[in-house]
């Protein structure tokens, strides 16, 4: 039963206040993209056993989406940050590095 902190309203709440939204930072492929790129965007997920960047919505709270860096193996949370970012912010990367020195961002 996760506890997450919403970076928008600052509330720390339990998982049931939130709604999980899958992998973060997907690049949307629209008309004009190849079938393969489109498939990757729609279906192929990192699904790592380890550090995962994912989307959550503070569904019962402020209603806002945000991003979380979390380990899928230990469920440890490295930080949460706003949804209006296309890449993992530096401070989150360093928070992960601090606890997982071997971790490298995915290509």
């Amino acid at each position, binding site marked *: 039963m996760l506890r997450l902190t919403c970076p*928008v309203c*600052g509330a720390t*709440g*339990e998982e049931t206040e939130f709604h999980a939204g899958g992998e973060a930072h997907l690049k949307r492929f629209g008309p004009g993209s190849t079938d393969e790129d489109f498939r990757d965007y729609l279906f192929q997920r990192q699904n790592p056993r380890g550090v995962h960047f994912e989307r959550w919505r503070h569904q019962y709270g*402020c209603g806002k989406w945000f991003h979380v860096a979390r380990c899928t193996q230990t469920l440890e949370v490295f930080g949460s940050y706003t949804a209006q970012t296309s890449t993992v912010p530096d401070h989150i990367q360093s928070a992960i590095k601090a606890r997982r020195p071997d971790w490298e961002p995915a290509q």
Partner: protein
Amino acid sequence: MFEPRTALQGAHFSGDITVTDAGLVGMIAIRGSLTDPALCAAVAEVTGHPVPATRKMSGDATDGLAWMSADELMLFCAYGDAPTVAARLVDALGDVHSMVSVLSDARAVIRLHGDVVREVLAKGAPVDLAPDQFAQGDIRRSRLGQVAVAFWMTGADSAELVCFRSVAGFVFEWLSTASQSGSAVGYFATPRR
């Protein structure tokens, strides 16, 4: 004969605490950037309340302004005043990118009163309701049992709660069940009055 009615139609329950339909309440959702000084000024001017800080509320359901989200406020006023207040807000906001919608009828407000108000809420809301963690002036949007609610303390032993109109009956029933006599938990210190 054709009078407006709340969803709960004045319902009242008395057990470990009292649970009461607050009656018709004017409610206006204001969306816009809460960091925009123009918006803050307009809202303060029309409502008489400063824009509250994150998860704070000024006043109560009779006259109050609550933080709902980073770009959303909820104004409480008299039911009959809501349309005109909303119109005044729209005027005052002018060109500021914003949205004002009257939601007086979309919500129900319930008043809770009694020594164990915090405990009754803590039976359904995953929120730290200890007096030093959740005080008057705080508002929390969360869930109660299986539905979305927002609540705030109006005194040491009283609170108000707002929920969607369609589930008002459910919430009322839920609160009455949780406060049936003999179900007090005895966890939070009894408030001093």
